[in-house]
């Protein structure tokens, strides 16, 4: 139902998420933002079960901020991703696991851009591109075919548009608009919301 996608370039990460907040067959909101800002250069994209997403993502968000307040410097994207995964793993075999799928995208001043894929079974993988949701089945092959490690920003946005075109063409559900953001050494930038042609 929900869709997340991330594409890493040589010095940036491009991420996009759909804007639908659904409840059974209804779209309750058309402009819902699924990205959570963990720090100036880290975004957490979170989809999954209704309450779990916000609860878990806000918990991670506040803890990352707390780390910065206590220690005076921010967690790196890799550390934040591992911290997130650890929390997922701790709750996995409890009575109340968090059923969430995540993408963490960030820019480290030392290591450069990074995209981390995490799922509800608390696996963690650093990947050049990744997607979550049923839409991933349709778009991962497009990413496999056209991705290059030296993409420019425009090429990455074009690749993203190709993926969304495919969703509009073949995906049974209507995902009318997508929030798009780009992270680079300057921080997080909002790009133009991508909407499907049909209104």
């Amino acid at each position, binding site marked *: 139902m929900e869709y997340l996608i991330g594409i890493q370039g040589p010095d940036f990460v491009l991420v996009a998420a759909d804007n639908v907040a659904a409840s059974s067959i209804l779209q309750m909101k058309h402009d819902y933002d699924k990205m959570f800002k963990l720090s100036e250069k880290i975004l957490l994209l979170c989809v999954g079960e209704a309450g779990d997403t916000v*609860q878990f993502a806000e918990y991670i968000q506040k803890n990352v901020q707390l780390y910065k307040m206590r220690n005076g410097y921010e967690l790196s994207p890799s550390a934040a991703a591992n911290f997130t995964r650890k929390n997922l793993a701790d709750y996995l075999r409890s009575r109340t696991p968090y059923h969430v799928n995540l993408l963490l995208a960030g820019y480290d001043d030392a290591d450069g851009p990074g995209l981390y894929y995490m799922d509800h079974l608390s696996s963690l993988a650093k990947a050049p591109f990744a997607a979550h949701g049923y839409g991933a089945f349709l778009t991962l092959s497009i990413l496999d075919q056209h991705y290059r490690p030296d993409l420019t920003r425009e090429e990455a946005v074009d690749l993203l548009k190709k993926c969304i075109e495919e969703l509009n063409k073949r995906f049974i559900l209507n995902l009318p608009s997508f929030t798009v953001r780009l992270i680079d050494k300057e921080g997080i930038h909002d790009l133009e919301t991508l909407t499907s042609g049909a209104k």
Partner: protein
Amino acid sequence: MALEDICGFTDTPVHAKWFPTSLFEDSISSIHLTDNCTFGLRKPKKSEGNGGIPMDFFIPTLPNSASFNHRPLPSPPAKYSAMVRRPFPLSHGTTTLGFVFQGGVIAAADTRASITPIHSHLVVTSSGSGADCMLWERILAREIRLYQLRHRRRLSICGTAKLLSFMLHPFKGTEVCVALTLCGWDKGVTASTNSGPKLIYVCSDGARLQGDVFSVGSGSPYAYGVLDRELRWCLSKEEAISLAREAVFRATHRDAYSGNNVDLFHITAQGWIGYMYYYRTGALFLCCL
């Protein structure tokens, strides 16, 4: 609370351990409650006192609740650990809706659902299980009033929604079924984005959504069908009221589980006014103070 006496909480073995007069201060894990209402995020912490609400309120009953309470109980706990079967299949269905427009917020529902004022600028429409909604509305009203007394200002609607969502979180996965739409008007001190009409949907699954129009209940798709076509920001008050009535009426016609008449509340900066449409000719009015 009087409700706890009726529900027999005072008879439960765990009741004694959570009250200040109790001699047994149990160090077994429990859910920690502070003045800031930081309800433990599913992680039980040591108890240090209570905020006046009996702690076992926030411990959902489990099939094997005996294993949950490690403390040896003075009386056999068998009757509290057995699952209570429903006497008959409960059918619940309603249509509730709320939307924001230039003249404030309209909250409407069929009379089977209920719309309850929490305070002069907040009204809650409920759907799901009637008993659960009634209980949680009372708890919410109490917590908001306590916040107002402690902090000398009214909690914002967003804060109220977050508080309710966090209170419902321990019961996720149990049979608690609560879907409330908070419709209210924030009186901000400054003209910030926080003040003005607000509409927030909170449900026991954990969802908390702020928006401009929500319809909840079994009749909600039918209501959306009417609302989505005609709803505009610039509606006049009479048009908005008539649109809300039309939407609920169409839903009660098509949905087997909605019916009776339409209750409607209009919230403005001055407070809420209720309209009960039980007669063809006119409406009964209710006003807040």
